[in-house]
């Protein structure tokens, strides 16, 4: 119960796509798919990342290069160190025997990856803007792929793809992680079809363990009650799909 980063050495690096890399490190995490860790680069910052690989005593995080922090993570070499604390939050509810579908958009796919590992009867849908941004292509060869520009697989959004798919079949559960607008549509779609659904939210985080109030989404702490919420919970959360909170605490429309 001591919330401090512990230093781990990066023992392997995998290029997942043009702008996503996975950093591997030795650490046994008592971890549920969908939970996250806070990753620390001393003197720079500390930010939340999903555990995207968990193999025996090696864990991995898949990092999309965006701003200063993720650039710094991309600059790390094998043998370099980072700090890790967690895992935090509530993960996905898994029922291994039932058939399910995961819908990942962009780096959101990282949150779903260990869930896929844990499930047996699973349909995987990944959406990306373009072919070069698709991740885990060899890891999950059976993946259904969608690109906005049609450069690979289905041309269109994951929501379009899922909607079509649901015309011919159904699932016991749909899990989703990605841009919030996309997740909102996935959740709505599932509601209409009477399918159970869970989504993993993304909010600015500071403490990660429920005291700072930064990660609020309609009174729910995304770091504690989330990041994964059920459709029922989400339907009570007005901010879902609409409002994010900046680092200052200001509300902004997504």
């Amino acid at each position, binding site marked *: 119960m001591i919330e401090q980063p512990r230093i781990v050495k990066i023992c392997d690096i995998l290029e997942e796509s043009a702008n996503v890399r996975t950093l591997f490190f030795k650490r046994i995490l008592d971890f549920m798919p969908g939970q996250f860790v806070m990753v620390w680069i001393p003197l720079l910052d500390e930010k939340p990342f999903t555990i995207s690989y968990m193999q025996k005593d090696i864990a991995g995080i898949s990092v999309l290069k965006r701003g200063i922090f993720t650039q710094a993570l991309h600059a790390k070499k094998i043998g370099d160190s980072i700090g890790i604390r967690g895992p935090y939050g509530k993960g996905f509810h898994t029922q291994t025997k039932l058939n399910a579908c995961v819908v990942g958009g962009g780096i959101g796919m990282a949150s779903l990856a260990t869930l896929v590992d844990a499930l047996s009867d699973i349909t995987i849908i990944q959406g990306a803007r373009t072919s070069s941004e698709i991740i885990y292509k060899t890891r999950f060869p059976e993946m259904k792929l969608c690109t906005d520009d049609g450069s690979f697989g289905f041309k269109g959004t994951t929501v379009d793809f899922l909607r079509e798919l649901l015309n011919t079949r159904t699932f016991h559960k749909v899990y989703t992680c990605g841009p919030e607008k996309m997740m909102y549509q996935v959740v709505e779609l599932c509601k209409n079809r009477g399918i159970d659904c869970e989504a993993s939210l993304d909010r600015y985080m500071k403490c990660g363990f429920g*005291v700072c109030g930064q990660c609020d989404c309609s009174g729910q702490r995304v770091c504690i009650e989330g990041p994964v919420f059920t459709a029922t919970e989400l339907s009570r959360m007005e901010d879902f799909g609409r409002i994010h909170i900046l680092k200052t605490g200001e509300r902004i429309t997504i």
Partner: protein
Amino acid sequence: MSSIDLSVHLCNIRLSNPTILASGILGTTRALLKRVAESGAGAVTTKSISNEPREGHKNPTVITFDGGMLNAVGYSNPGVDAAAREFSNLQVINVPVIASVIGTQKEDFARVVDGLSDTNFSAIEIPLSCPHTPGFGLLAGQGTPEATFAITSEIRKITKLPIFVKLSPNIPEICTVAKAAEDAGADAITAVNSMGPGMIINIEAQKPILHFKVGGVTGDALRPIAIRCVYDLYKAVNIPIIGVGGVSTGRHSIEMMMAGASAVGIGTGVYYRGIDVFKKVCEEMVQWMEENNFDNINSIIGIAHD
């Protein structure tokens, strides 16, 4: 449930129980304040609000250790205009809401209080005591009797709401500062803010963990210090005291009130025992009072004094 009534009055504000959410913990949005109220708090306090928006310090901003918590959040807040919007419509919260107001100059405090004048806050709390944010609190000399008097007087001029002045445990002359606040028209003393600052170094990284390097210490480590401050203040001032620092159980809360607190703030306790720490603390207080034949919570206030 028992017939024991935990309600207290604080500057004419009725609290259904003496537990108050301390400033800076979960008080970022109206939705979270509402949730905390529903988790049993007798009153809730917002995260501190400044005139301009502030991003605060970079992460890590909050960590824990075996004696409590260390934080240097750096007063991140959206500024008074956005805050006034966020905290409009406070009627949806069924307990009193206290606005925590900060500033670098006394005029600054006044501007924020003014900017909140259309809201339904029940009181204004001014922390003159943060040990880890440049421009504010101790780092801006606001912890002296003179500065405390000046800032409190300025705010007194422009609001009829009760003013709570929040003090630092780091200042040996805490009673003198409290008296200055009382003289300037403060209605209550909130004691105490986080102590220190402290530092924790990650020895593998060879660096302080907090991005701001140092942060305020709260939780268990702070409790004996807070109890002593409240005990001393109870003798020094005539206005009520809100005891804050390391309270996470009913026993702690009773200890704080016996030292002289009329109500009890809870911050780090949310981490130790979850968001319903307020309910748990109240239940434990009731149980203790039953076992020890107390029926009126007010009768324990200051009872540890000779």
